[in-house]
C-alpha cells in the first residue's frame, strides 16, 4: 500500500505550483475554455487569493488541482500542477487519491450541501482520518473530537454524534474545516468558504482559518468573488477573468495600485470604509462573457471603459508593472494607474 | 435559440404579431420568467415546450401512436364490416383467416372488430377517468394546499383512507358495491377508478401549492391585494399543474390496465361488451385448448401498445413541461 509519505516529494521545491494550466470542456456548443493558460504558485504559510466573477475559472482550477475534474468531457491541452516538485497531472489516479485529503484538502462554499446528510459529523471527520492514516476507529473518533474542539465548536462530545442538519451554518463550516484539517494538509483549497454565511459569521470563519494556518503553517488558496474577504487575509491576489489571470500582485499592490482595467473596475464598485466622504460606486457594466465564446483580444474589452482598438487586436500578455511580482495583462495599465490615483485622491 | 422556426409560425405571421410584441425578442429572458411566472403561457412558451418535447424521440413516437389510436377508435365502424356483438356459435374460436383477420372468439364474434371497439372503450374509460380524477383532485388539492388548516387536515385524512386500499382491491370492492345487481356496465368501473385516482392527484396538487404558496411571486401578488381566488387561479394553478398533468397522462394507461384487470377477474364489464380484459380472460379460460393463444395474444398486444404509447407521451411531457423534473 502506498501512503502519502511514500510518494517522493521534494521539500526544497515550491509547495504548490500551477504551470500554464488549461482546462477545456468540449460540448455541443463549442469548446468551453474554463481555464486558459494560468500559472501561479503558493508557499508554506502563505495565503493566495484567486478573485473573479462566477465563471471566471477559479473553481475549476481548484477542482483540477484535486483531480476531481472528469475527463472527458474535460481536456487539458497544456499545463501541469506540481506539489513539491511532483506532477499531479502525470501521477496515476491511485497515487493522486492518497494526496487528496491528505496533503491537499478542500472546503466548499455551502457547508450544508457539502456534508453528507445521513452520516454523523463525527463519523464524517473520522472517515477522513481513517482514509489516510492507519488508526483504529476509536483513535479516529478521538481525533475528530479534538478537531471539533480546535475549530471552536462548543460541546464536542455531543456535536460529534449529531447530523449536519442539526448544525447552524457557521458551525457546519467549522465542521467542514475540521474535516479538511484532519490530516494536517500542506495546502488548503477554500472555495468561497464564507459566501453562504452571515456577515458576522464570515469574519469568525476567516479568523479561524487564519489561526489554524498559523498553527500549522498551511498554505491556503482562497477562492472568492468577494474582495472584502480578501483584503485582510490574503498575502497575494490573482485576479481572474474569463479563464485567465489578468493581474497578480501582493494584496497591497492590487488594492492600492491596480494596473488592469478589470481590477480597477472591481475596486471602484466596492464601498470603502476608510473614506471620508460619500463616493459614487461605479459598477462594471455588462455581464461576464460566455466561456464558449470569449471576445477576441482582451476578453474584458467589451465592458471596459479604457478600451481601444489595440485591445481587440491581440490578447495582452501578463507583463511586469510597477513593483516585483506585480503583473498585469492590460494594454492601458498606465491609464488605469492614473485613473486609480485620481480615485484615491478624492 | 438557434432552432429553425416552426412551420406553423411561418404560416400565420399575422397571428404571431398579434400575440407577440415585435420587441419581444429584445426583452431579457429573465424578466419574463421571474417577474410573472404565473402569466398564461404565451405562444413562444408553447413552442419551447414543443421543441423540448420533440427532442425525445420515443415521446414523438408515442404521440403519433396515441393519435393513430384515437383516429382508429373513432373510425372503428368504418374500418370493420362486422358488428363486434354479433354472435355466431357455429363459427366459434376460428383461428385468424382472410375473413376474420384475428379470428373469432368463443361466441363466434369477430376478434378484430372486438379489438377496435375495445379500443374505443379503453380510450373512453381512460380519458373519463383522467378527467374525473383531474377535476376532483386539482380542486381538492388546491383548496387543501392553499387554505390549509382544517381543510387540509380533512383532505389528508380522507386520502389516507383511500390510499390504504391496494389499488386493485379497492377498485373491485367499489365496483361490486356500486353494482349489486351485477349488470357489469362501464359506469361503476369509471366511478371506481376516479374514486381511487383523484387522491394521488390531490396530494400532488396539494404539495405543489404548499411549496408555491410561500414563493416570492405569490407573496408579491398577495401584497398588492390580489384575492385568494385570483392567486390560486392565476398564479398557483398554472405553475403547479405541470407534474399533475404528467401524472394525469400516466393515469390513462393505468386506467386502461385497471379496467382490463377488473374484467379479467370477472368484476369489470360483462362478457357481452367487447373489452380487452374480458377477451384475455376468455383466452385464459381456454388455455388448455390447443391453438387458441390468439384469443389472448391480440388483446394483450393492444393493451401493451396503448399503455406504452401513453407512457412515452407522459415521459415526454415530464421532460418538456418542466425540465427541472428530469
Amino acid at each position, binding site marked *: 500500500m502506498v501512503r502519502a509519505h511514500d510518494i517522493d516529494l521534494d521539500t526544497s521545491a515550491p509547495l504548490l505550483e500551477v504551470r500554464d494550466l488549461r482546462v477545456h470542456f468540449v460540448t455541443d456548443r463549442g469548446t468551453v475554455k474554463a481555464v486558459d493558460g494560468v500559472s501561479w504558485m503558493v508557499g508554506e504559510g502563505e495565503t493566495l487569493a484567486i478573485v473573479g466573477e462566477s465563471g471566471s475559472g477559479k473553481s475549476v482550477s481548484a477542482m483540477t488541482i484535486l483531480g476531481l475534474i472528469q475527463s472527458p468531457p474535460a481536456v487539458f491541452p497544456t499545463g501541469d500542477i506540481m506539489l513539491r516538485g511532483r506532477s499531479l497531472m502525470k501521477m496515476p489516479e491511485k497515487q493522486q487519491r492518497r494526496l487528496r485529503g491528505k496533503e491537499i484538502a478542500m472546503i466548499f462554499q455551502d457547508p450544508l450541501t457539502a*456534508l453528507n446528510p*445521513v452520516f454523523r459529523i463525527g463519523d464524517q471527520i473520522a472517515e477522513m482520518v481513517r482514509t489516510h492514516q492507519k488508526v483504529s476507529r476509536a483513535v479516529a473518533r478521538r481525533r475528530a473530537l479534538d478537531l471539533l474542539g480546535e475549530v471552536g465548536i462548543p460541546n464536542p462530545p455531543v456535536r460529534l454524534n449529531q*447530523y449536519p442538519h442539526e448544525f447552524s451554518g457557521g458551525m457546519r463550516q467549522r465542521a467542514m474545516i475540521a474535516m479538511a484539517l484532519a490530516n494536517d494538509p500542506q495546502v488548503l483549497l477554500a472555495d468561497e468558504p464564507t459566501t453562504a454565511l452571515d456577515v458576522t459569521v464570515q469574519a469568525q470563519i476567516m479568523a479561524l482559518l487564519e489561526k489554524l494556518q498559523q498553527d500549522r503553517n498551511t498554505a491556503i488558496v482562497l477562492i472568492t468573488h468577494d474582495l472584502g474577504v480578501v483584503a485582510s487575509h490574503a498575502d497575494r491576489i490573482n485576479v481572474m477573468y474569463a479563464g485567465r489571470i489578468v493581474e497578480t500582485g501582493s494584496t497591497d499592490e492590487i488594492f492600492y495600485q491596480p494596473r488592469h482595467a478589470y481590477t480597477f473596475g472591481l475596486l471602484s464598485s466596492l464601498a470603502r470604509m476608510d473614506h471620508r466622504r460619500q463616493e459614487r460606486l461605479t459598477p462594471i457594466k455588462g455581464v461576464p462573457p460566455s466561456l464558449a465564446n470569449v471576445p477576441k483580444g482582451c476578453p474584458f474589452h467589451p465592458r471596459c471603459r479604457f478600451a481601444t482598438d489595440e485591445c481587440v487586436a491581440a490578447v495582452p500578455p501578463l507583463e511586469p508593472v510597477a513593483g516585483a511580482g506585480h503583473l498585469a495583462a492590460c494594454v492601458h495599465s498606465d491609464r488605469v494607474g492614473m485613473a486609480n490615483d485620481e480615485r484615491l485622491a478624492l | 435559440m438557434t432552432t429553425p422556426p416552426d412551420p406553423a409560425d411561418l404560416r400565420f405571421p399575422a397571428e404571431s404579431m398579434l400575440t407577440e410584441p415585435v420587441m419581444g425578442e429584445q426583452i431579457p429572458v429573465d424578466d419574463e420568467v421571474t417577474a410573472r411566472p404565473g402569466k398564461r403561457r404565451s405562444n413562444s412558451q408553447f413552442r419551447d415546450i414543443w421543441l423540448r418535447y420533440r427532442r425525445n424521440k420515443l415521446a414523438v413516437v408515442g404521440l403519433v401512436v396515441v393519435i393513430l389510436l384515437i383516429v382508429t377508435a373513432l373510425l372503428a365502424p368504418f374500418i370493420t364490416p362486422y358488428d363486434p356483438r354479433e354472435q355466431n356459435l357455429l363459427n366459434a374460436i376460428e383461428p385468424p383467416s382472410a375473413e376474420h383477420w384475428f379470428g373469432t372468439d368463443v361466441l363466434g364474434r369477430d376478434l378484430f372488430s372486438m379489438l377496435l371497439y375495445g379500443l374505443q372503450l379503453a380510450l373512453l374509460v381512460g380519458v373519463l377517468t383522467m378527467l374525473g380524477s383531474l377535476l376532483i383532485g386539482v380542486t381538492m388539492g388546491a383548496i387543501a394546499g392553499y387554505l390549509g388548516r382544517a381543510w387540509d387536515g380533512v383532505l389528508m385524512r380522507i386520502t389516507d383512507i383511500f390510499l390504504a386500499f391496494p389499488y386493485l382491491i379497492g377498485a373491485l*370492492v367499489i365496483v361490486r358495491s356500486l353494482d349489486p345487481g351485477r349488470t357489469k356496465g362501464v359506469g361503476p368501473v369509471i366511478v371506481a377508478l376516479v374514486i381511487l385516482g383523484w387522491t394521488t392527484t390531490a396530494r400532488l396538487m396539494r404539495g405543489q401549492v404548499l411549496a408555491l404558496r410561500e414563493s416570492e411571486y405569490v407573496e408579491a401578488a398577495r401584497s398588492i391585494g390580489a384575492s385568494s381566488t385570483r392567486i390560486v387561479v392565476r398564479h398557483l394553478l398554472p405553475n403547479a399543474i405541470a407534474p399533475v398533468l404528467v401524472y394525469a397522462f400516466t393515469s390513462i394507461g393505468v386506467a386502461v390496465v385497471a379496467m382490463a384487470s377488473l374484467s379479467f377477474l370477472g368484476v369489470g364489464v360483462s362478457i357481452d361488451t367487447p373489452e380487452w380484459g374480458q377477451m384475455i380472460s376468455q383466452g385464459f379460460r381456454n388455455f388448455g385448448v390447443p391453438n387458441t393463444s390468439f384469443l389472448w395474444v391480440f388483446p394483450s398486444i393492444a393493451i401493451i401498445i396503448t399503455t406504452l404509447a401513453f407512457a412515452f407521451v407522459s415521459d415526454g411531457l415530464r421532460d418538456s413541461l418542466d425540465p427541472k423534473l428530469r
Partner: protein
Amino acid sequence: MGKFIVRRLAQAVLVIIAAMLLLFLALFTLGDPFATSGDKAVPPETQAALRAKFGLDKPVPVQFLVYLKNMFTGDLGIDFDQRRPVAEMLAAALPYTLRLAAVAIVLDILIGVVSGVIAAVWRYSFADVLVTILTTLAIGVPTFVIGLTLRKYLSGELFFPAVPRSAFGPEPFWLAEVLLPAITLAIVDAAFIARLMRGSMLEVMRADYIRTARAKGLSERKVIGKHVMRNSIIPVVTYVGIGIGVLLGGALITETIFQYQGVGYLLYKAILSNNNPVIMAVCAFAVIVFVLLSLLVDILYAFLDPRIRLS
C-alpha cells in the same frame, strides 16, 4: 422518535378502522349479497330469513361493531358457499402468499437494485440503454400479460410444474411451484426498482457531498458504495416496503393466472361465487397489512434519513 412512532401508530389504527367501515358498507350494505339474484330467484321472505341468520337485519353500526369484535377473537364469519370458517380459509392460504411474496421480493431487490446501480454508474453505456429499454417494456406490459405468457410458454412438467396441480396429487416442492408466479411479479417490480434506483443514484451523484467524499481521497468504490448508496437507497426502501404490503395482501392477478393457492386466488374464487364474507376478510386483511407496512416504511424512512427525525 418514540413519540413519532406512537402518533403514526394511532393514525394507522384510525385509518384501518375507517377503511374497514368502508369495506363493510360497500360489501354488506350497498352490495347486499342476498339481493343479487333478484327477488324471483330468492323470494323476499327467504332473503329476510337469510339476512336475519347472518345478522344483516340489525342496524349497520351494530353489525360493524359485532364484526370488529368477532375479528379480534379470530372469528371472521362463515363463508356463504360451503359454511367453512373464513378464518381457517385465510390461514390456509396465507403461507402460500407469504412464500410467494418472499421469493418475489428477493428477486425484485436483487434484479432491480443491481441493474439500477449498473445503469447509473455506467451511465449511457450499453448496459444503461439495455436497462432503460427493458424497464420501459416491463412497466408497459400489464402483469396479466406477463403472467399468461410465462404460464403458456415456460411452465412445463420439467422445469416448473404444470399448474394447476391436482387437489389429490402429491404436494409439489414449494419453490418449484412458487417460481413462475414470483418471476411474474418480480418482472414489473424489479423494473420499477431499477428505474427508481438509477434516477435516485444519478441525482445523488450530482450532490455536493459526493464531491466532498471524492475530495477526501476516498476510492470510487467507497464513494459509490457508501456515500451514494446510503443516500439513494432511501426512496427504494420506501417503494419496496409498499410493494411488500401489496404482495402480502395477495397478488390477485398473478395468483389467479397460476391458480396458486394464496390469498389472492382465494379472493378471486370468492368474487366468482359472490362469497362476501371471504371477500370482506381478504380485503380487510390486505388493507391492514398494507397500512401496517406503510407505517413500517415511514418509521424506517425516519431511521434512514436523519433529517426527518426532528420534524
